[in-house]
């Protein structure tokens, strides 16, 4: 027989006002298994808790029911007190007779409240009798993190985690880290040079002993769960031995072949053996095999000839490495919408219609024109430049319904850069709305208009065509209600920020969600902005949605903070409210596997000593299970139960109704 103690709280007059707690205690005393029952003024007070502890010891209680406020309020308090008195905390239960009884039934005669209070207490006692003692689950944590993506968000996360003393593996797809930020000229609203603030951070990554950088590599597979992930990384062949290469650049110098530069967005070309840009980290070139005659026709090989340390290795193959990590930060960034979708703006047909990102390169002192604004067609300095905002963004017809968030600001920046470099120039900006919400952002846009004389036109451009060496822009100015035509020398399209091509594939690989635009889903849009549904996997930067540099850095640091929190001890304790499978009953229909929102259930194969397959059953990974119980209800053979919410407990409560 159980030995249950019941404590009915008066909560001053909060409960006592409409519930006769003495009577509730007396009624409880009559129930089988209840050996002790009383009411008290404030159970949560120190004397109340002490009383509870003493009663546990004195009456050798094996279960405690506190009939008081909502368990959301004080369940932790009483479980802690029980634990201190040597009672398993999960043998302590609460009945909610305040929020869901005394406060909502105002019958001062106490009749209504007492009836309900009795019922709730009785149901909880019956449930409590079936509570099994549970132990917190301890999961070992590999205190090492993986950061996917070496843009500013990933760099920030990696540096912060390393700063916290933990090892980081940073995986970057391109030959160099730096991401899109490395392409930018100046940054709004402070106008400091992007590379000047980014390059030192890139170097820091390279020098930090805690960070292992895998450039020119991709994550192929992520297995496991929080604290215990196994990651497979493909290191693409560079055809250059990293250990031998000194980064002298002789090979690049002597390479006779060229291909379009990805980094410069086609504005110029690069060698076939190349680093994306001079400040690349790591400063190790890669060979672009599809464009290299050595690979295609077995000709040339100049790079190998000039390489002093003999680092060129044409026979190099992709390698796959496996790493164990405890947490993953996804910081894969964004890309710009392909402008070819805008036939009416002539991108791709007219050389002098360029994208905003290309303009960044034109304005960058390390860019193809050395920072002079020269148009691509003939290298002339443009006098009139038209900037078109919302090219793709907020355009449902083209599939992007959202605002790209950064274009208003960088377009304002572009007009300023243009005006600073071409003093006699005139910038026109077509906009629909100006979204400059941010510290010093609105002032920045006003400065572009008032100080640097950019002419802002509220309206959209209908079409662009070439005429006599000019690009004619036909648009509307809805404020003056007229059609406007501008004969421009160059047109800059503020194209939409979109998710990276293949982002949904990576989402599936690592088990996180993405929205219909391919941006990754945070766990909660307000309260858990860097977490994902897959515990131990965090997000940083524009892979989650369009964001600017400060926001990306914020998120990178926030994700790092989360990772370091997780890594604060070697083991991670968690509530034992998890599902468990009765292996003998499980008939391996896998309905639970399909139902589980967390992929926490695996198809487990039972083998004997000889390795023969004896059978299969579902197996819950306690590290991943969040305790929702969906699998329990889905299981046809009743093979799964949820600790803390077992069928037995629920039915006991129903039966006591």
């Amino acid at each position, binding site marked *: 027989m159980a030995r249950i103690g019941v404590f009915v709280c008066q909560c001053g007059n909060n409960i006592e006002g409409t519930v006769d707690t003495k009577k509730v205690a007396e009624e409880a005393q009559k129930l089988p298994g209840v050996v002790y029952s009383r009411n008290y003024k404030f159970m949560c007070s120190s004397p109340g808790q002490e009383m509870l502890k003493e009663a546990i010891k004195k009456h050798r209680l094996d279960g405690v029911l506190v009939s008081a406020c*909502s*368990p*959301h309020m004080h369940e932790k308090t009483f479980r802690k007190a029980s634990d201190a008195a040597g009672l398993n905390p999960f043998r302590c239960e609460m009945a*909610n007779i*305040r*929020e*869901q*009884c005394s*406060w*909502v*039934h*105002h*019958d*001062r*005669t106490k*009749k*209504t*409240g007492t*009836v*309900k209070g009795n*019922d*709730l207490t009785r*149901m909880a006692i019956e449930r409590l009798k079936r509570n099994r003692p549970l132990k917190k689950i301890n999961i070992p944590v590999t205190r090492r993190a993986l950061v996917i993506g070496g843009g500013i968000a990933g760099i920030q996360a990696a540096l912060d985690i390393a700063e916290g003393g933990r090892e980081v593996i940073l995986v970057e797809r391109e030959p160099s880290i730096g991401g899109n930020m490395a392409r930018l000229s100046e940054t709004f609203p402070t106008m400091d040079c992007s590379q000047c603030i980014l390059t030192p951070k890139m170097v820091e990554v390279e020098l930090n002993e805690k960070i292992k950088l895998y450039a020119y590599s991709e994550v192929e597979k992520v297995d496991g769960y929080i604290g215990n992930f196994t990651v497979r990384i493909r290191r693409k062949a560079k055809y250059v031995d990293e250990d031998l290469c000194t980064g002298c650049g002789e090979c690049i110098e002597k390479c006779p072949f060229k291909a379009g530069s990805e980094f410069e967005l086609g504005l110029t070309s690069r060698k076939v053996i190349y680093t994306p840009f001079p400040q690349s980290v790591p400063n190790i070139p890669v060979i672009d095999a599809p464009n290299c005659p050595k690979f295609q026709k077995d000709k040339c090989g100049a790079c190998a000839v000039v390489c002093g340390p003999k680092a060129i290795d044409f026979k190099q193959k992709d390698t796959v490495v496996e790493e164990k990590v405890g947490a993953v930060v996804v910081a894969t960034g964004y890309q710009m919408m392909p402008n070819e979708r805008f036939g009416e703006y002539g991108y791709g047909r007219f050389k002098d219609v360029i994208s905003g990102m290309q303009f960044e390169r034109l304005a960058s002192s390390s860019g193809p024109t050395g920072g002079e604004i020269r148009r691509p067609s003939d290298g002339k300095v443009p006098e009139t430049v038209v900037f078109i905002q919302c090219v793709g963004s907020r355009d449902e017809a083209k599939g992007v319904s959202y605002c790209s968030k950064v274009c208003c600001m960088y377009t304002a920046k572009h007009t300023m850069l243009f005006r600073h470099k071409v003093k006699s120039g005139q910038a026109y900006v077509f906009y629909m709305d100006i979204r400059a919400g941010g510290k010093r952002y609105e002032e920045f846009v006003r400065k572009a208009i008032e100080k640097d004389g950019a002419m802002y036109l509220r309206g959209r451009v209908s079409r662009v065509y070439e005429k006599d060496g000019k690009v004619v822009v036909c648009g509307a100015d809805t404020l003056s209600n007229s059609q406007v035509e501008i004969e421009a020398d160059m047109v800059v399209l503020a194209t939409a920020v979109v998710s990276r091509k293949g982002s949904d594939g990576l989402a599936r690989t690592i088990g996180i*969600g993405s929205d219909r635009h391919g941006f990754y889903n945070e766990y909660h849009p307000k309260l858990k902005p860097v977490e994902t*549904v897959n515990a131990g996997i965090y997000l940083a930067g524009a892979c989650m949605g369009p964001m600017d540099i400060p926001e990306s850095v914020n998120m990178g640091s926030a994700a790092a903070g989360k990772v370091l929190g997780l890594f604060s001890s070697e083991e991670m304790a968690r509530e034992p*409210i998890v599902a468990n499978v009765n292996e003998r009953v499980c008939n391996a229909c896998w309905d639970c596997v399909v*139902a589980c*929102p*967390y992929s926490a259930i695996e198809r487990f194969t039972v083998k004997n000593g000889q390795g023969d397959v004896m059978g299969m059953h579902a197996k819950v990974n306690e590290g991943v299970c*969040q*305790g*929702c*119980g*969906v699998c*329990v*209800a*889905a299981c046809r053979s009743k093979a799964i139960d*949820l600790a803390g*919410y077992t*069928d037995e407990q*629920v*039915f006991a*409560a*129903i*039966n006591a*109704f």
Partner: protein
Amino acid sequence: MSEHAQYEQTGAFEPKIMAFVCNWCTYAGADLAGTSRLEYRPNVRIIKLPCTGRIDPLFIIKAFENGADGVLVSGCHPGDCHYTTGNYHARRRWIAFKSLMEFTGIDMRRLHFSWVSASEAIKWVDLINGITEEVKILGPFVEYKGLKGEENG
């Protein structure tokens, strides 16, 4: 006359309602009704579960068997589930289960499914008052109680 008077046992039939609610939304919503000192019919008894997705249809049948005259299932709004998709499972199960219950002769006015978020105390109050009123008109549900009696007897 104070409001409570109408809830007093006047010898008239007072239905018993059992509510299966999720821990994160509806339970918290019901708590909020308390902290806001809203008043509602005392006929409901709540059983808390982590998620509506945990609810086994058998719970509902058992509730009827144990004397419930009406049953309510309530959880987070679609898209707001603490466990991402648990309430969708509940909804799917509910759609299948509903027709089965209808087939077995349970008046669907006795069985309700609703979304109540942690902030919707007023919705909770209206819901409970509404269901209580509706079930009161329907009268006691006796068919399943008989079953239990036979089994026990």
